[in-house]
């Protein structure tokens, strides 16, 4: 594996919130073109890990490398160079949030072209062209000039995906992209993500959708209590999990969908 094949390399990540140690030495490597699905009970640190990967949370220790640029979390916090480096990594790692976080004062198209114009400094006409193409790709050409308040949850999340794509990132990080959606709206978002996978987009996805994970993942990472417990191909992970913790997790998930209170079940 040459360094060119590596989209993200995270090493020795630790993260605490107060007394609560959420990540306890996590290593993760994501290869270019790979789809990594992170699963595990709530409180396992999945979301925190994802947020550390684009430095929305700064890990207390460890390092993150995106395309050869490394942020070392032991370094000085507020230097100008460090902030620039962090921004640089964020540009390359787009994020899709559980709550969409679209900009409510902007239309769908304006949401999509905001980053290209104001961060990537693309000329406006070109950004609009790209934005329209991306909205078409998620099937929302007709919602181009609607504000988020007029969109359904599924449409909002598809705009958010288009907004992420508009940054032309190395990797897109999805934080439970369907958890805030009604069941009947999930399929359209999952389909949009599957289309990206088919086009070779590098993605890290935190999700509870087992059928989706089985279909789209190249690798499933199982987290529990701040550690990565297992990394497996989906076929092995879902049909023949080695770890009893995973077996009980999967049993609960297939019984009754996502189980927020799962940590008590162990």
């Amino acid at each position: 594996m040459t360094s060119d094949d590596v989209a993200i390399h995270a090493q020795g990540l630790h993260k605490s919130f107060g007394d609560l140690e959420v990540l306890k030495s996590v290593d993760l490597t994501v290869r270019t073109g790979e789809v990594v699905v992170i699963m595990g009970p709530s409180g396992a640190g999945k979301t925190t890990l994802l947020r550390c990967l684009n430095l929305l949370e700064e890990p207390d220790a460890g390092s993150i490398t995106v395309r050869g640029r490394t942020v070392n979390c032991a370094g000085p916090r507020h230097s100008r160079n460090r902030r620039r480096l962090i921004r640089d990594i964020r540009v390359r790692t787009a994020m899709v949030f559980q709550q969409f976080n679209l900009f409510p004062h902007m239309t769908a198209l304006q949401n999509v072209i905001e980053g290209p114009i104001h961060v990537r400094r693309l000329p406006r006409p070109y950004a609009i062209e790209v934005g329209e193409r991306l909205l078409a790709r998620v099937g929302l050409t007709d919602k181009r000039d609607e504000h988020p308040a007029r969109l359904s949850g599924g449409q909002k999340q598809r705009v958010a995906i288009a907004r992420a794509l508009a940054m032309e990132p190395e990797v897109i990080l999805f934080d439970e992209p369907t958890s805030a959606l009604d069941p009947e709206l999930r399929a359209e978002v999952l389909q949009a993500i599957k289309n990206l996978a088919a086009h070779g987009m590098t993605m890290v996805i935190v999700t509870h959708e087992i059928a989706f994970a089985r279909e789209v993942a190249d690798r499933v990472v199982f987290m529990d209590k701040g550690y990565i417990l297992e990394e497996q191909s989906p076929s092995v992970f879902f049909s023949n999990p080695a770890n009893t913790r995973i077996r009980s997790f999967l049993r609960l998930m297939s019984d009754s969908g996502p189980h927020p209170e799962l940590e008590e079940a162990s």
Partner: protein
Amino acid sequence: MDLLAQSVPILLKGMAITIFLGVTSFVLGFWLGGLIALARISRFALLKALAIVYVSVFRGTPLLIQIMLVYFGLPQLGIQLSPVPSAILTFTLYSAAYLSENFRGGILAVEKGQWEAAGSMGMTYSRTLRRVVFPQALRIATPAIGNRFIALMKDTSLASVVTVVELTRVAESVGSSTFRYVEAFVVAGAVYWLINSVLSVGQELLERRMGRAYA
């Protein structure tokens, strides 16, 4: 009634001065208040402390004292201001303190996810403020800011004590020269009410316009 009719021109002039005082101080106070709000949410402790002290002083002391301090006190330090500029200076400083708190409230009310969405695409702090946070904060703060504008319009009557010939002082002098105090002050009060009714309607329209995207 003749005497009062003769007073119409100076009443109109007083009204113009009142509007000038209110609008100028509001516009200046708006920008100063914005800067103070920025200092208040800054991660630089010194800026933050200065903003806190500023707001505390200008909100915690009577406006009348501030007006007299600026007009009568500054000359003692060798700074001589004519009545109108000194009144505008005071009203600006005073309303900036309140407006900065309105802005701060608006900024804090913008969801954390908005900062994160902007940050996760690599936007700088200042651009995030300008492009994402301010437009939303301003909408949230508009009712409070409108109230501030209206309150300021009425507060300008205090400029009469430092010899600014605005509406209240005109009413006073018309009253004392005609002995028709009731009419003079009722008319003056009605003019304030009229000005503020126009401001209220403006605020209403602005709120509706800003809320359109959210409907």
